[in-house]
């Protein structure tokens, strides 16, 4: 396969990682916790989308919207049950709680949903571009024909819509500006009269909606299983840290860097070493953090 094809795959992977990483990094920046159960939010979104696609006669967008709503509701219920009560204990107890919650959720999903992977049936159109010349360099083709499916386009377009919507929310609405203010300085936010619990709840709902969307997009792209979200949590975490933890814009950049690095290293590594490609994302992460510890868009190194 040519490099162009790998770049398409990288853009697709980067897109759903980016959607999830925005939610993850908002929780980190505003609620001030690393939520390791976040992968399971994606899995739940994937399952809700799968069930909705099978149960409802409607077209695919209905399943996507169901996953987003389901993700938002799940997220706020879990937050109210497990995280809000220990909000004052600090980041480390909250991190440990989220790890435990993640394990419990993952196994609960496995118990109910079984081990097998399921597929969301979609009608896929494939667009081929075969006329592009190949530029072989050694075993690698630097250009080459490629194809893009309607699923790829849905994933990338969804991500672009999400970026625009999140940007408008964070810069044009009171609740969005209040979210960013809380990320800066919670005590001053309270002095300004911002109801910090309400803002935290809003962040949980938003992060859940984004997780539901990312999960169902992954499900459409690959499959639905108990590990759908968990298998991506390290990439999401890396994207958020790479971009500068707490910055949604940085998370978007970080996600595409990781998606593209994964894809390109698949293209360049000899076929016997493709297993290493998933490690390449972390090589990049370590390299960036050595040069700029606060991440690409980060302004400060937060203390845990």
């Amino acid at each position, binding site marked *: 396969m040519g490099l162009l094809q790998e770049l398409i795959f990288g853009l697709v992977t980067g897109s759903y990682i980016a959607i999830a990483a925005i939610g993850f990094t908002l929780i980190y920046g505003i609620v001030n916790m690393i939520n390791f159960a976040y992968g399971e939010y994606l899995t739940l979104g994937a399952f809700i989308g799968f069930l909705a696609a099978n149960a409802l006669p409607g077209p695919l967008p209905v399943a996507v919207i169901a996953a987003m709503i389901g993700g938002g509701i799940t997220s706020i219920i879990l937050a109210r049950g497990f995280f809000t009560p220990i909000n004052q204990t600090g980041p480390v107890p909250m991190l440990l709680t989220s790890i435990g919650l993640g394990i419990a959720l993952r196994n609960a999903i496995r118990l109910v949903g079984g081990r097998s992977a399921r597929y969301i049936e979609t009608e896929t159109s494939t667009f081929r571009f075969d006329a592009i010349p190949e530029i072989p360099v050694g075993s690698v083709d630097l250009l080459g024909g490629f194809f893009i499916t309607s699923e790829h386009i849905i994933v990338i377009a969804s991500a672009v819509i999400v970026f625009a919507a999140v940007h408008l929310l964070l810069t044009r609405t009171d609740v969005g*500006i209040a979210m960013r*203010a809380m990320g800066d*300085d919670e*005590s*001053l936010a*309270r*002095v*300004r*009269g*911002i109801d910090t619990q309400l803002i935290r709840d809003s962040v949980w709902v938003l992060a859940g909606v984004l997780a539901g969307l990312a999960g169902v997009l992954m499900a459409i792209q690959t499959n639905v299983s108990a590990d759908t979200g968990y298998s991506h949590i390290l990439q999401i975490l890396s994207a958020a840290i790479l971009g500068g933890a707490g910055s949604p814009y940085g998370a978007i950049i970080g996600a595409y860097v990781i998606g593209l690095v994964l894809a390109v290293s698949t293209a360049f590594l000899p076929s016997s070493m493709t297993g290493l490609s998933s490690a390449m994302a972390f090589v990049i992460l370590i390299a960036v953090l050595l040069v700029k510890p606060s991440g690409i868009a980060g302004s400060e190194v937060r203390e845990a």
Partner: protein
Amino acid sequence: MSLLEIVDLDAGYGDLQVLSGVDIHVDDGEYVTIVGPNGAGKSTAMKAIIGIATCLGGSIEYQGTDISGLSPEEAAHNRIGYVPQTNNIFPSLTVEENLRLGAYVLDEMPEDRKREVYDRFPALADRTSENAGSLSGGQQQMLAMGCALMLDPDMLLLDEPSAGLAPDLVDDMFDRVDEINDSGTTILMVEQNAKEALRRCDRGYVLANGQNRYEDAGDALLDNEDVRQEFLGG
């Protein structure tokens, strides 16, 4: 009449009591300064008014209503302008967004107030969409004051407004406080630059060890030999 009436106030943070039995009253339109050595509890008195410090006893009445024991987000609805000494702006928000949050408790954005703030501080008007963190120290202090003024407050609390300012900006800052007071806003200010603050204000309090020590007109405190020896470095 008395706009703010603090009576026999005990206040602190959690179990740590900082103030004991402090009395402060501020009349409508007055300019009152609190001075005293480090650790005297000057800032704590302000923080008790806006709900950051905990009231352990006594009372705080503002416009005739007891406001002690409110949380900061509840106290914000009293629309008392408060400019903290440090961390008084949101650095990653733009100048415009900072002002917008200054008016967060109001039902709608007071556009005319915003114009007044920009008129008062023209340096801010040139940089409305820049991140507040990129402003100079003096401009950040203006922005912090502007945020407090967005509420059109009857009373403005200033915590060490000259701290961290370059010396040539300190006079300018005091002039601006005079202007704000002249336009009818009551001022309660904590200041480490005690002599200048007492020269400018109507009335002053000297706090030490969390208790009232002296209270008098600003000039009278400056002339008071004991106050000079003990607190103003002779």
